[in-house]
């Protein structure tokens, strides 16, 4: 994690305003990248030694140090050696321990036995060590803009590393954030802001009650690149920076490097179903991650909504209950039972052995093995009349179906 001395921000009241690298930094970043390019094919240590001295242009020292560190994290290095380095070391140092011959004679003898020249042997000796690896070109050309964005991400993550809680108002892709929070052991409180898909998440580690911890701070920082995939967001984080409690604010459009696109589907089964259903029933829209559903004081995130294109009132929710632990399946089915959704289709893996009594009354069930039969689902929805499901009302108190604790939060506009 970024050391405190590289966290560049100014303080305005209780706000910590990060010093993002922007267009004005691009000229010196370009020079840095040119220096890096100049050393391609040479040992990493030579590049490191060069970068210990200033660039031939004006560059803010702290930002430069940050950019060098971020560049280093990209691990643009490769190994090339005539002899596997470990083998070369075993032979050379073993031989040196056996004889009292001068080093050059030992190298010549070993080089001959390995069928390489002395120079090749010497190059191989430490060819795998970080400083000796050769500087390599990035797979995709690295622009000054990209490096600046990557630096900004590292700075923000460094600040969140020292945070206790983040509050995110977000539209779209909420599920990705919630899922990541849960995976990293964070506590996530969710409240809807309005009837739309927008929500407010309050995310913190279990220890946040007592103090900020690096363990959960790192997890909070991991949420940031995911935010780039949300159409709109606003984040406020309570951080402890240089022993001061300060608030960090981020919003849509801040210059931060995004994560790679989040996985659209949780499993291949889901992906295949969506693809086959779209092909089979072009008049039905397959909506991934529809709005969450209020279910007896809980929120459910169904996998799909299937909506008729010319008659949007014909809408079905579809949940694929795949290979999970028995407890998880039991909890999920209990939630759906309590929701009493009139237009629910449950696709259940035959391997789950769900008894009929466990299933929500009124739900249409399609059992599957390995792949969900899109035709069977289409048959269900075209042969059954359907009514709309109840959507979540604002201000409802929820508990999340994914094992997260949820509670009502004050509306952001309140």
């Amino acid at each position, binding site marked *: 994690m970024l050391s405190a*001395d590289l966290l560049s921000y100014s303080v305005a009241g209780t706000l910590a305003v990060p010093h993002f690298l922007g267009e004005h930094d691009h000229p010196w970043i370009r020079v840095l990248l040119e220096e890096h390019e100049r050393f391609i094919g040479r040992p990493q240590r030579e590049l490191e030694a060069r970068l210990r001295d200033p660039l031939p242009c004006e560059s803010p020292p702290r930002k430069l140090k940050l950019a060098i560190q971020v560049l280093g994290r990209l691990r643009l290095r490769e190994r090339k050696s005539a002899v596997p380095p470990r083998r070369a*070391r075993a032979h*050379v*140092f*073993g031989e040196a321990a056996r004889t009292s011959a001068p080093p050059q004679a030992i190298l010549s003898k070993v080089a001959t036995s390995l069928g390489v020249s002395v120079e090749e042997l*010497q190059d191989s000796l430490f060819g795998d060590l970080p400083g000796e690896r050769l500087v390599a070109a990035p797979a995709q050309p690295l622009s000054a803009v990209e490096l600046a964005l990557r630096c900004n991400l590292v700075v923000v993550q460094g600040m969140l590393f020292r945070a206790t809680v983040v509050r995110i108002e977000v539209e779209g892709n909420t599920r990705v954030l919630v899922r990541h929070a849960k995976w990293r052991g964070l506590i996530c409180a969710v409240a809807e802001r309005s009837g739309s898909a927008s929500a407010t998440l309050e995310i913190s580690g*279990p220890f946040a009650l007592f103090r900020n911890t690096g*363990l959960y701070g790192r997890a909070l920082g991991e949420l940031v690149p995911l935010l780039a995939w949300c159409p709109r967001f606003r984040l406020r984080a309570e951080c402890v920076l240089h022993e001061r409690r300060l608030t960090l604010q981020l919003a849509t459009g801040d210059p931060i490097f995004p994560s790679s696109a989040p996985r659209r589907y949780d499993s291949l089964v889901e992906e295949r179903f969506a693809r086959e259903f779209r092909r089979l029933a072009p008049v039905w829209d397959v909506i991934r991650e529809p709005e969450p559903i209020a279910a007896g004081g809980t929120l459910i995130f169904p996998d799909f909504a299937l909506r008729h294109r010319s008659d949007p009132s014909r809408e079905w929710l579809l949940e694929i209950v795949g290979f999970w632990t028995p407890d998880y399946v039991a909890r999920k089915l209990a939630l759906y039972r309590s929701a009493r959704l009139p237009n629910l289709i449950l696709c259940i893996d035959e391997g789950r052995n769900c008894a009929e009594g466990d299933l929500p009354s009124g739900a249409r069930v399609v059992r599957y093995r390995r792949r969900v039969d899109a035709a069977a689902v289409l048959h269900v929805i075209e042969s059954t009349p359907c009514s709309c499901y109840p959507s979540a009302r604002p201000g409802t108190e929820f508990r999340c179906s994914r094992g997260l604790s949820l509670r009502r939060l004050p509306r952001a506009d309140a």
Partner: protein
Amino acid sequence: MKLRFDRGTIVLTDPPKELDLVGAPGVRWDPRVHAHRAPASQYPALKRWLLHRGSRFQDIPPPARPTHELWSDVDLRPYQEAALSAWELGHRRGVVALPTGSGKTRLALAAMHRTRLSTLCLVPTRVLLDQWLREIGALYQGPVGCYGDGVRRWAPLTIATFESAYRHMDQLGDRFDLVIVDEVHHFGGGLRDETLEMTIADARLGLTATPSRDPGVAARLTELVGATVFELAVADLAGGFLASFDAITLYLDLVPEERTAYTSLAALFRSAHADFRQMVPNGSWADFTHYSARTPEGRRALSAWRQMRRLLAFTYAKRRTLESLLGRHRHSRVLIFTADNETAYAIAREHLVMPLTCDISRPERDDVLERFRRGDLRTLVSARVLNEGLDVPDADVAVVVGGALGEREHVQRVGRLLRPSEGKRAVVYELVTRNTIEVGQARRRRQGLVVRRSAQL
């Protein structure tokens, strides 16, 4: 009322109405989950608090214990017995400080065996992870858990690297009664402390050869592990339970070119440092670097400092002296210690001796140590890897070409030579450059070898 472990904390649900939890140790109301919560490390105190008030509660399931019959007896030397007794008398909490080679691991094994508690041992590196697994395996026939080096396997006796424990303590924190921390001086002032805050273990034993002298760190360690309950220095055991050794300091000169360069670099550095000292008489080195990084003059001074260190790391005289020492001790097992990896590799290339650095993979390190044990390799050069805990077999000569971490590092390095054997007398050479910063550094680092304190019982 129910107590539940939750990711490094204790959650209290459904407390009786008449019980006021306001004064309970570490407990706070958590509105996120509508329950009370306390850090896991407060569990023993919280439990005592609840029992004292006669509260009835469903407790956290007790950690599974190792099978006592599967243990072989663990014999201890007298000073190890005394250390263990001191720890027992300290209510099974505290730090034991013993020199390298005096059998701290054995003491830990005895603590596990005698207390019969489920135990998590924290070690700093993957190499030490393997070493501890071997040593426990020799005395305990049951399964031994391991967290680290890509393995996640739990058992009532488990060894974990600091890093792995840090990442998994939110899951492991309720599974052990006793936590043993090897090289405990790494705790007390950083992220790793979170590991010890997230476990319910009441019994805690810290082991080190070099306890921290920093009052802040010592206070924090007392909170997390316990106070130092027993301490012996190298000089207390040398010649008896540790091998005797001769410490020889060789004072060397710089060649004229080096002296000229050093003098100008030192002048640049000293001028900036003196200005800072005038402004902040009690400022620390960290304050100085922080301050200097803000101005071009300061940055030049810091750069001069780094260049001075690089220049002194492996001077011409050190090169020649090392060559001569390696020739003289051609048939001994020699360890060369440097200030940085760069110098270690320079020596490796020049004298064709195997470097043992953090860059060398673990399997290769194991292989190298095994070859050193067999005598196929007779000399190793290292900057830091050999400093701590690693069981280096039968080395009898050390050459300290340079050091960066002061007294603690030096004690640990010398300790590598002190595993006793029949008639052994080790030799430690220190190469120190005259009229440079190295003279003061060498004087300070040697202080760690003298008798510090007697055992506290």
